[in-house]
């Protein structure tokens, strides 16, 4: 120690002070190290998540609903994106002038709009759903903060009311609500997916991290419907229902070879593109979901049972004079009393007494058996939601009067689709196929219900029915041989039948030499004077059949001058039931 040392430096500090400082520094570093270990190693999930949320995003990938097309791939229902205008009342800034302009663009009332935006706690409210892209662009051009677009899909039905009952519609959120849209919702809807991506500062996706779930677009549904025939059928049905001031009407067109439904239309119809004015009552596909008593269109089946069991032959004679038949305390009438008729003529002239007399020769079980085999009393399993089985009572409960009325189609109820399908048996030489609404590459296997001979014999009778002397000369088609049967049934009302309310129907097929199409027409309560099936339903059949055969290019099997209408003034062959 030199004496020249400055007195301050000579100051002696206690040694513990430096050690304390050192210790404190060490402890500080240790704490930092521990904290680092804790953050990096032990408690890193939270931080990683926070970090990731700065750049990683999970984006939803919406699935497009599948289209519905007809058998020739013409679209019947297509989904296309539209914009919905939404707003976040929490962050909206809008001037009264902008509010007025926005309301005008959206076609709503300014006061309503203000009310929607009033609740500032909400973060999302739809202002208007499903606008066309150009209108949506104009809304964006207003540049109101807090108003934005939300992409959605909207379903369009190009054929509109023509296919409305068949296709049905979806609700505003794209779920199937009616008819085939409902029945095949699972396949059409597809499955939305999502994936995780990395976005850069500009919001562009720069890296695809992982696909959480791949989106799956809905499957395209190919129907058996032929849009051309569907249009013809709807057009003719609509004009007939209007001309006869009927309550409703239905038509079904079947392909004989495959059992596919080529057309199915109902009147009144609705516009599926306008969901606001949707009325569930008009949306019923009557051809499948409504039952009616078919009347005389059932007589050929009675004849078929009788021929099958061998109790009559087509030329056996049945005495139908004096045009009425008493069974128990009830009397069966013919609208147009005839004398002795052959079985073929009973069908041709549609004699109730004749049919009843034939039926009374039959065992109820035998008759029930064929009716059951031919599909009455069981749903047709076409895949359409809400099919009805119809009513066919057990044979053991039949009284003679019931058996007699059933022979001409009273006391039994069927849907038009069931009736059309049953006629397939006559058109295919006795085989019955399941009907389908979906396009089929290979026809389903058929089951034999009646023998070839019986089917051909009934076919010849049905050909007689549309010629002069039969009940439906107006069902004839130029250039083609046609076979079919009329029905004019009293409507059930209360416990009995209404005297002046009828269901007029016609079921037939053509060309009779090698049938290709079955057409069934039903008109409910025609009230413009005429009500016979031959006058109301047969002309619809004729036009639809003629144009459908032409559209399908079926070669004619008759000369072009084959249509022979009875001379004007000739007595009309009438029938009731």
């Amino acid at each position, binding site marked *: 120690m030199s004496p020249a040392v400055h007195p301050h430096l000579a100051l002696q500090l206690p040694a513990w002070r430096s050690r304390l400082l050192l210790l404190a520094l060490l402890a500080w570093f240790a704490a930092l190290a521990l904290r680092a270990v804790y953050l990096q190693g032990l408690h890193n999930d939270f931080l990683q998540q926070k970090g990731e949320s700065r750049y990683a995003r999970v984006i939803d990938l919406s699935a497009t609903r599948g289209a519905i097309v007809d058998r020739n791939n013409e679209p019947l229902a*297509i989904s296309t994106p539209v914009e919905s205008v939404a707003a976040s009342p929490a962050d909206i800034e809008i001037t009264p002038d902008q509010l007025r302009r926005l309301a005008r663009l959206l076609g709503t009332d300014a006061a309503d709009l203000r009310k929607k935006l009033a609740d500032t706690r909400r973060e999302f409210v739809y202002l208007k759903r499903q606008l066309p892209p150009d209108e949506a662009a104009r809304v964006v051009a207003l540049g109101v903060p807090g108003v934005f677009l939300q992409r959605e899909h909207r379903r369009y039905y*190009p*054929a509109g009311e023509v296919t409305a009952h068949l296709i049905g519609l979806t609700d505003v959120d794209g779920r199937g609500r009616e008819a085939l849209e409902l029945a095949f919702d699972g396949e059409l809807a597809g499955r939305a997916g999502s994936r995780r991506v990395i976005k850069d500062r500009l919001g562009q*996706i*720069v890296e695809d991290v992982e696909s959480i779930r791949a989106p799956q677009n809905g499957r395209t549904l190919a129907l058996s419907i032929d849009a051309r025939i569907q249009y*013809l059928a709807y*057009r003719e049905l609509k004009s007939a229902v209007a001309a006869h001031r009927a309550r409703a009407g239905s038509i079904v067109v079947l392909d004989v070879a495959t059992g596919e439904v080529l057309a199915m239309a109902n009147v009144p119809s609705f516009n599926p593109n306008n969901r606001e004015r949707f009325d569930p009552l008009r949306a019923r596909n009557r051809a499948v979901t409504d039952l009616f008593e078919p009347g005389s269109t059932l007589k050929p089946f009675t004849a078929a049972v009788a021929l099958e069991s061998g109790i009559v032959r087509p030329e056996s004679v049945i005495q139908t004079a004096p045009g009425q038949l008493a069974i128990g305390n009830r009397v069966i009438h013919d609208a147009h009393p005839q004398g002795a008729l052959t079985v073929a003529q009973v069908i041709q002239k549609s004699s109730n007494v004749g049919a009843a007399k034939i039926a009374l020769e039959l065992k109820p079980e035998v008759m029930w058996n064929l009716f059951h085999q031919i599909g009455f009393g069981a749903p047709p399993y076409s895949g359409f939601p809400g099919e009805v089985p119809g009513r066919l009572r057990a044979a053991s409960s039949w009284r003679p009067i019931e058996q007699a009325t059933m022979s001409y189609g009273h006391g039994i109820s069927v849907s038009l689709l069931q009736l059309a399908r049953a006629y397939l048996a006559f058109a295919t030489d006795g085989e019955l196929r399941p009907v389908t609404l979906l396009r089929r590459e290979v026809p389903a296997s058929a089951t034999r219900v009646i023998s070839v001979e019986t089917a051909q014999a009934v076919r010849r009778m049905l050909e007689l029915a549309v010629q002069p002397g039969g009940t439906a000369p107006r069902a004839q088609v*130029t250039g083609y041989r046609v076979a079919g049967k009329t029905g004019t049934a009293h409507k059930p009302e209360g416990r009995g039948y209404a005297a002046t309310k009828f269901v007029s129907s016609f079921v037939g097929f053509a060309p009779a030499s090698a049938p290709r199409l079955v057409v069934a027409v039903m008109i409910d309560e025609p009230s413009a004077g005429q009500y016979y099936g031959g006058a109301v339903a047969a002309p619809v059949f004729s036009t639809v059949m003629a144009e459908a055969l032409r559209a399908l290019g079926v*070669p004619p099997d008759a000369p072009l001058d084959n249509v022979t209408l009875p001379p004007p003034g000739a007595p009309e062959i009438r029938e009731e039931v």
Partner: protein
Amino acid sequence: MLRLNLILLAVLAACALALVTSQHQARKLYVELQKEQDLAKALEVEWGQLQLEASTWATHARVEKLATRALGMRVPPASRIRRVPAAAPEGRP
């Protein structure tokens, strides 16, 4: 020894730079892919809309109205049809 280390250092630096560039390239390409996919989606949407438009123009009711009213077309009566014996393939006259 020092030289080897220097070479390794240079290789390391080169690798690191290559990684950075390739990552950048990958992202740029991905952005492009994204754009193409968006375009594909937009085209798909447009296709659907065009399909819809086409089927709206080709509505059977509209075609029929044009054919009968604007063009004066109609189905010829039976007397004006002559049938040619079937030499053509089935169903096509």
